[in-house]
């Protein structure tokens, strides 16, 4: 399995500002994924981040709003830009385990509240 940490664990931000969330993995991984979980809802994939290439965004998510960096094989950041209260969610990063099992592991999440 992979051990994943996220920073910050939570934050309260004012509308119109931006927040950058960091995701650190204890091993090198090819793909990292970012998900959003709105209050009381399930998880929705935002984008897939590959090292050395542009992130691939899912329908409904755009790079200007959720820019992603992937500078190396153990680290990624997700920025939530120009925030509005609708962005209040838990943001989670995940990776697929290093073995061939395809088990996917998640970070502890960043709980964002926008006021």
């Amino acid at each position, binding site marked *: 399995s992979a051990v994943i940490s996220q920073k910050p664990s939570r934050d309260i931000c004012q509308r119109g500002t931006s927040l950058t969330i960091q995701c650190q993995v204890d091993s090198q991984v090819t793909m990292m994924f970012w998900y959003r979980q709105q209050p009381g809802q399930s*998880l929705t994939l935002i984008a897939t981040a590959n090292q050395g290439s542009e992130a691939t965004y899912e329908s409904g998510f755009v790079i200007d709003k959720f820019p992603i960096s992937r500078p190396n094989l153990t680290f990624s950041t997700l920025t939530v830009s120009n925030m509005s209260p609708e962005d209040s969610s838990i943001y989670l990063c995940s990776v*697929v385990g290093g073995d061939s099992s395809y088990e*996917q592991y998640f970070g502890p999440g960043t709980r964002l509240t926008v006021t």
Partner: protein
Amino acid sequence: SQQGEEDPQALSIQEGENATMNCSYKTSINNLQWYRQNSGRGLVHLILIRSNEREKHSGRLRVTLDTSKKSSSLLITASRAADTASYFCATDVRANQAGTALIFGKGTTLSVSS
């Protein structure tokens, strides 16, 4: 859109009872994974079952998979108060591409009272 649909949406039981949650999905899959989430925290991976497997056990957990019906079930036996959580099933976003991102069901909220 959601790939998986869990039912029931909410389940309340007493300690010691068994809890069964079901998940249905729409497209062909490589694997199906079950996760637990306590109180809006991170997801804990419970079990992965491959498309060519029909049943898998892990401690008090038993997962079944019926690809003909596109459904899976998670059984928790002898439940404990600590099992109180939301449970999600998830399948690969891209059919026939294992190891990619996941699409999640809506989840079942399990409440176990002592």
